[in-house]
């Protein structure tokens, strides 16, 4: 089998991270479970946020996990893709909003007319 940095089999072994640090690992998974419970936000809304974040941080494990989770929850293709566009808009916006900094610097260093 071709060796890659990412192996989808490894997702199932996520729980093994507790082996070398039981206390912190257990705390993390307790916290993780609590985060995704129905709260002020529905479990469904949280799943869509997770999907968008998964694409933002480009984590293949998270993308697999929250695509499957979304399918089970009955989230449809348009909803999934719209969530990604939110991620894309924020990512794109984060680049473009720095354009103001660029513009400021240009204005400081370049003679302005008028």
């Amino acid at each position, binding site marked *: 089998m071709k060796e890659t940095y990412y192996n989808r089999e490894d997702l199932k072994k996520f729980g093994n991270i507790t082996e070398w640090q039981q206390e912190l690992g257990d705390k993390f998974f307790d916290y993780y479970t609590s985060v995704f419970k129905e709260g002020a936000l529905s479990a*469904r809304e949280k799943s869509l946020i997770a999907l968008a974040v998964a694409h933002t941080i480009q984590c293949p494990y998270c993308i697999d996990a929250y695509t*499957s989770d979304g399918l*089970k*929850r*009955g989230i*449809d*293709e348009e909803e999934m893709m719209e969530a990604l566009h939110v991620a894309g808009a924020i990512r794109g916006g984060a680049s473009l909003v720095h354009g103001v900094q660029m513009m400021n610097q240009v204005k400081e260093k370049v003679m302005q007319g008028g």
Partner: protein
Amino acid sequence: MGNPSSSIKKTDKMSEATLKRQKHRLSSSERQLEILDNHEAVEIPAFQQKMEKIDLFPLRPKGIEIFQVNVGKMCNQTCKHCHVDAGPDRQEIMSKETMQQCLDALSQIDAATVDLTGGAPEMNPNFRWFVEEISKLGKGIIVRCNLTIILSNPKYHDLPEFFKKHRVNVVSSLPYFNARRTDAQRGDGVFEKSIKALKMLNAIGYGMPDSDLKLDLVYNPSGAFLPGDQIELEKQFKRKLQRGFEVKFNNLLTITNLPVSRFLDYLIQSENYEDYMNELVNAFNPVAAKGVMCRNTLSIGWDGHLYDCDFNQMLELKVAGDSKHISEFNELTLSKRNIKTSQHCYGCTAGAGSSCGGATT
């Protein structure tokens, strides 16, 4: 895990004809069982072994509460996931004589519910007579109506009224609240026709608040994934069908697709079989295992043979013991039988459990 085991070869391209008509090798129940029985090929434990660990093997029935009759394999649709391999070309139809034998058996037992399925059960020429006779016995009746049958021919247009007259609980498949996923599973145009039929049922009181005419929808995932939480999905379906189409219904029943017949073919074709079986096994729920439907259901085939469930019926796994046909129905003998299982049974024990009545836990 991505590749199915080498022992499971992909077959020819999927088609809208039934597997039987295509003379597909998976139209043979022996071939399906060969695949299902070979649990080592997909690296899963045998279902029997899992059940032994929780003292549920051999699996024993608890009495017949639901008498499920498959009145024939003929259907106006050819859905991609159909475990019956039903379709317009199927000729297997229950005779009136066999129906009478069912009625004779029913009159001897306390089973409260008769669940009529197919195919499209309404296509059996004696369907209405059968419903009337069951109604006379005072049993609750479920009809698994595919919705589009109501619009398929003028002779079926009055089905909603007929159902109403006999207080039938209408249970209808609608895999999704939009056309794309519904039509992908059930055929082009099915979603639109289903919505029309649902409106006809609503119009005479089915699924409406303050009405005792019950209209339930069945959700099967349209692909190689398990259904999510039944209550959460029901909320979504209610909201989307109300907002989009002003359609109302009572309960959403989530049913896991079992790897039988056309869904098994789909899993193998799409190279999802191994992953899907592993997902079912990983989601094994001992509580769901205790409440599997085969413990309170008897399934009767179109030719009168008896089975532990509709899936075993399609795999031609007749009940164990001496009461194998409705003509020799014996409740006591049946109550002492061991239920037949194979790896397809993992479908009913996964997650919140699955049955013809939806989640079981």
